[in-house]
């Protein structure tokens, strides 16, 4: 996500400093976008950065921060100015997670996992050369990043692998109802994949992913969620046991197919996909406004 922002809007110095480590998987990044009061209305964000000499002082909080507990860096949308139009006072800052004043608190999701977090900033000092582009232009970079994010979220390759896996796992049942539903899903996936290829072709000719990428996000997450439903359906009643007697670490597994218990965790976990990266309702607003012009 942050890679394209840095190589498109960053200074040469920033490119040299951050991109090689990203390419080598030496640094992990997390995303500081959502705030408790700013979800779908992202531009209303309140985390504040005040320039003080050659550094910004950051105060505020971010939420639903995926894998912040493992991240080396966070890219953050911060408010550097209170403006009439809320989008105009936003800037894009890169912050080292080891900076004093950053606190990460886990949020446990309904699948029982620790994937997301709250991140709190108290007088966090960030060198001013970690600002991307111009102060106050952060919203432009944020939207650019989101368009790229939607590509990843579409998840076509992962879904392909998971559909094949489901077919293999359930081949022995010869269940006509299940097989029909899998085929319908594959057909939808074909349409999505070629839509993605059309968008990629346009980018290859020098274009940028625009509002069309919202199609990828909406349909991609719908397909992923339906796939998780099919896993649950295939496992039937055997989804019921969840944790072993000693929790998830247990070696003693319940009866039924091996994929049963992970299926329901995945089903619950994937409810997030129609919420994150701009909820699917917001994606439809984007298409309505930017493409249909209504």
């Amino acid at each position, binding site marked *: 996500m942050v890679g394209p922002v840095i190589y498109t809007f960053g200074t040469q110095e920033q490119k040299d400093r951050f991109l090689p480590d990203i390419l080598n998987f030496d640094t992990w990044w997390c995303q500081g976008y959502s705030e408790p009061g700013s979800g779908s209305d992202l531009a209303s964000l309140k985390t504040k950065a005040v320039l003080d000499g050659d550094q910004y002082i950051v105060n505020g909080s971010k939420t639903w921060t995926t894998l912040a507990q493992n991240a080396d860096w966070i890219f953050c949308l911060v408010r550097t100015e209170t403006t009439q139009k809320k989008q105009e006072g936003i800037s894009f800052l890169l912050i080292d997670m080891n900076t004093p004043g950053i606190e990460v608190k886990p949020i446990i999701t309904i699948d029982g996992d620790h994937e997301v977090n709250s991140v709190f900033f108290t007088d966090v000092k960030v060198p001013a050369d970690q600002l991307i582009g111009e102060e106050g232009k952060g919203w432009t970079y944020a939207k650019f990043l989101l368009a790229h994010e939607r590509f990843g979220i579409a998840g076509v390759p992962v879904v392909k692998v998971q559909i094949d896996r489901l077919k293999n796992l359930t081949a022995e049942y010869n269940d006509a109802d299940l097989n029909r539903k899998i085929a319908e899903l594959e057909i939808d996936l074909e349409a999505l994949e070629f839509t993605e290829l059309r968008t990629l072709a346009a980018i290859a000719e020098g274009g940028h992913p625009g509002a069309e990428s919202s199609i990828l996000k909406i349909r991609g997450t719908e397909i992923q969620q339906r796939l998780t439903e099919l896993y649950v359906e295939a496992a039937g009643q055997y989804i019921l046991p969840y944790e072993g007697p000693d929790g998830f670490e247990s070696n003693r597994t319940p009866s039924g197919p091996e994929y049963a218990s992970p299926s329901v965790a995945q089903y619950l976990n994937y409810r997030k996909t129609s*919420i994150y990266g701009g909820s699917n309702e917001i994606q439809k607003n984007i298409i309505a406004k930017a493409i249909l012009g209504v």
Partner: protein
Amino acid sequence: MNLNYSDEQNMLREQVLKFCETNYDFIDREKILESDSGFSKDNWQQFAELGWLAVPFKEENGGFNFGPVELTVLFEEFGKALVVEPYLSSVVMSGTIIENSNHKNKSSIIEKIISGEHQISVAYAEPNIGYKFFDCYASTSVNNNILSLNGTKSLVLNAGNASQFIVLAKHDGLSALIMIDAEVDGLSIQSFKTIDGQTCGELTFENVSIDTDSIIASGVDAEALFNKMMDLSILCISAEAVGAMNASYMKTVQYTKEREQFSQPISNFQVLQHRMVDMFIETELTKSLLIKATLQLDSNDPNAENTISALKVQVGKAGRLIGQNAVQLHGGMGVSNEMSIGHYLKRFTAIDSMFGNTQYHINKYQTNQ
């Protein structure tokens, strides 16, 4: 057609509602889930004192002689609060079988269920038979003149707390319901947490010796009794689902009125309004089939079995739609384990998986037509 509840039924509903308001908020429930037994013994004792454990039993066995209507009243309220106490397994499932069986001591066993002293679970599922419960592998055999039981039973609700099990097994090649003490030699129990925070267990029987008195139903009688128990159990979890649907859409409406984005409550947005209307419509449609099925079961209508399948399908589909949209409209908060809303989705998912899922009952309905 009079579809009004009686004063007595309304009083029961009020009583359960009050109990849940006082003793069953989300934090109380979390504490219960974390306990070793997975339910509250205090609550269970209160259920006994309030007479709830006696609801479906005949007067001659110390019960109130209430029927499916009263059970659905109870379960609807349980569903709103996501009650986890093992009422379904111990009172509805085991109670129905015992009361209609030829067990020679059934009165004294039912007495102990009603007093809250004993919990009993039905062991019907197995690792490899899906929903074809009568195709079970657990079976009796005679070795050295001793009748014994071998096999595995899965997904036994509340197994860790049961003092006795009613096991569906083959005896002389026919289906049989066999009553077995939890403490008996050769029976090992492994307990698991379920996806919705309840508990279930896997039972392994290795040469467990039984006497013929413990076979409380056999052959076609056993299967008929088992099916009767299934129908009533589906009705009860469907009522529970209706309660959970009700709570889900109402909590969602409340949340969207409070949550502000774009300088206004998100309930102002028409797309969300329509989504919540869909949730409401599905709740009402489910309630309709629930009432239809309840009345048919109550009057032993021959169409009841089919209506039960229709109900189970509606519960599965509506539960999914309502559970998913409730989470969606709560945004990130919906997938947070600290909010109750995601726990309704888990319960809908568990309910769909039990006693035949949506696809199973679509096929059953189609075959029965």
